């Protein structure tokens, strides 16, 4: 008797919670799930045309090898939400962090699940990690579905610093200034990009590793390091508030939001490093299923809600086909391998 009261209360409470969740949003429905009412009508057309391939037959899981709340996780969740409003199945996100993304990637590579498990990965997992340690996977264990997002890496200094440009910083060589540069972790692309620059500029600089980008940004704000390399998304507001200056971009092209900031290539340093993310499935996935999945993902990526998310999160979409993803990964791998070897970090 007592127990059933408690259960009843629980049921009522959880119902109220959902009610509050839905009541406040006028336009779109709550999270993923069987969207019954207002899900877009164009999605139905899409699924009817492709009726030959029986996919998906159960909920789709997107594995994210990083912690909840990060930009990969946010991207996965925004995509999952857009996907589940187009298909009859739930799309869930599983976070399986650890060892720079290699644990989750190795797990998927070894278990070879069916196409209902999708892996979101970032370039470093395939291009730098294999040089840094022995990993139990390679790109040959996967088929790529599509490129997702692209985030440039920029070099930033505190607003109080004497340097206003790449030239100023390079001049530090003559002054004999000792520079310490912060980054999100040893062997990560922000580490390699700065190491490459200081090496080419002939400046002696000390690498200070932080655990993640946020601690590195606070170290720069607090004046504990001289420079950091980071993604512009999360530091743009410090640029706007006048606490941080961005000196250069480690990509061949300038960053849209910062048209006045030069690239390192323009200044004569050949460094091309940016983080881009993509979706993978098991290598054993049949081509027709893969095509169907690609279609579902591309449709979700074109949706208004996903586009809005990209804009809000300062992310640039990466328009790459599966084949191009694999090709580019192999290119990047050789390139990054050389820098890692120069730094003496190589595991081989």
């Amino acid at each position, binding site marked *: 008797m007592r127990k059933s009261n408690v259960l009843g209360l629980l049921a009522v409470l959880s119902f109220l*919670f959902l009610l509050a969740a839905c009541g406040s949003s006028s336009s779109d429905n709550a999270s993923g799930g069987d969207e019954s009412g207002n899900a877009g009508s164009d999605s139905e057309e899409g699924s009817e045309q492709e009726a030959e391939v029986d996919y998906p037959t159960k909920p789709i899981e997107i594995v994210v090898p990083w912690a909840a709340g990060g930009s990969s996780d946010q991207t996965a969740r925004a995509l999952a939400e857009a996907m589940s409003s187009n298909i009859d199945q739930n799309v869930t996100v599983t976070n399986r962090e*650890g060892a720079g993304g290699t644990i989750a990637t190795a797990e998927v590579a070894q278990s070879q699940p069916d196409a209902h498990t999708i892996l979101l990965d970032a370039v470093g997992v395939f291009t730098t990690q294999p040089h840094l340690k022995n990993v139990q996977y390679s790109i040959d264990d996967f088929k790529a579905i599509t490129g997702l997002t692209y985030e440039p890496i920029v070099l930033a200094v505190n607003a109080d610093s004497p340097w206003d440009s790449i030239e100023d910083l390079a001049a530090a060589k003559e002054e004999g200034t000792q520079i310490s540069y912060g980054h999100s972790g040893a062997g990560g692309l922000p580490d390699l990009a700065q190491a490459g620059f200081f090496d080419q500029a002939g400046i002696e600089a*000390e690498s200070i*590793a932080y655990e993640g980008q946020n601690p590195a940004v606070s170290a720069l704000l607090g004046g504990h390091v001289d420079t950091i390399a980071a993604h512009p998304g999360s530091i743009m507001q410090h640029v706007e508030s006048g606490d941080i200056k961005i000196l250069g971009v480690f990509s061949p092209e300038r960053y849209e939001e910062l048209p006045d900031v030069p690239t390192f290539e323009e200044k004569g340093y050949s460094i091309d490093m940016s983080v881009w993310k993509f979706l993978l499935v098991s290598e054993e996935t049949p081509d027709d299923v893969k095509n169907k999945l690609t279609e579902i993902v591309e449709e979700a990526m074109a949706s208004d809600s996903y586009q809005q998310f990209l804009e809000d999160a300062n992310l640039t979409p990466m328009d790459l086909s599966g084949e191009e993803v694999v090709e580019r990964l192999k290119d990047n791998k050789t390139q990054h391998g050389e820098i890692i070897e120069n730094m003496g970090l190589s595991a081989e």
Partner: protein
Amino acid sequence: MEVIVNSLIDVFTFNNILVIFLGVFAGFIFGALPGLTATMGVALMLPITYGMSPTLAMMALLGMYCGGTYGGSISAILIRTPGTPASAATVMDGYALAEKGKAAEALRISLFASVFAGVFSGLALLLIAPQLSKFALEFGPAEFFALAVFGLTMIASISSDNLRKGVIMGIFGMFVSTIGIDPIGGLSRFSFGNDELIGGINLIPALIGLFAISEIINKSQTAHIKSNEEVSNVKKAASSIRTFFKHFKTIVKSSAIGTFIGSIPGTGPAIASFLSYNEAKRSSKNKEEFGKGSMDGIAAAEAGNNGVTGATLIPLLTLGIPGDTVTAVMLGALMMQGLAPGPQLFQTSADMMYTIMFGLILVNIMMLFQGYFAVKFFAKIKNIPVNMLLPSLLILCFIGSFAVNNTVFDAKVMLVFGLIGFIAPKFGFPVTPMLLGIVLGPIAETSFRQALSVSRGDWMIFVTEPISLVFLLLSLLSILLPVIRSLISKKTNEKA
């Protein structure tokens, strides 16, 4: 000013209050169940909040966060298993009190302390957030190292029976924290080529193992014996308003420590609660009582960890930098709402910022009411027959460990630590110092190596930075004072 008044009014909408009520309720449950933490609850709640307005979403998450942080003390007190790492300091005194039949009183004081600390840190967020965040940025590698060292001296106060064994366990804990990828060099250590070990030992499974599993084994040995344990008289405990004022000084001090620690990104509630506990014990007149059922100890630990709740929002809202996993998830929630927390947000949507801050205070007030009634209910857990309680707990432990990273490896880690937690105390080795080592080890190591890189190998960096120097001196004092004091008392004894 108008913005602030408007925000204050905005908080009191039906939807906000309803969502806070449910968030706190869910938080209690997540916090109280071993293995399910406030962090996990917030992460699970995240997708539900996507459909809500930004304020409403934050209210739900804050309710979960504060409720979960308090909830951790419920199981710590009742069944000696801290629901979250932040309640590990509560276990020692809370369980001792529960065994004496004072469970409800312990739960009440922990509730009052939590609520007071939560409101305290909420006010700090409202009034001095920009100043606090500036100060927090002063914390560089040297300062973090000194803080971690100061934290590690707490081993002395939580292993009073045998300092040597406490230190051994503390160092063992620090060793465990070195397993996996080296945070500076990126190389793997003690992993023996095993992919799972490369990922390192996660704090949550270790915590569940050390406290919950070991306690389950202990309890199951006597499960067949019918106990006629008395359950505390809940009505009698109503006088605990008076107890609250009795411990008022400790609670205020601990709230301040919690708020201070919370405002520094990368610290967290576990450190805050241990520091507060340590300070309460240091300044207490009845030191012997600590660890054996001190109300003051519970009040300190719980005020310490709930003082963190509001303060962690300081770096999040003012700088856009999340200080721990919970605020990282909240950052994600705000980003999904199209809001990027940071210096700009105060200019573009100040009204919402203030609504969130008032919401945090409201969450704590709600917690007081809900907790007041929930305590009566929770205290009854002590009445559940052991043969029913233990299997259900065991299941929860496995689920909790697995859920941290969705891997069976963490469940195995939990079992190994369960054995350590069961066997070590039999030889007089306390487990709490080990937990302290696991929590503080990585901070100490990383910041130590970062500091020496920044200074190009110059050790003077630790004493030339003022904040670092202060903490190192405090650590030295906290080690030396008890020794000196005991020497003096020995001498006076000899004279007499």
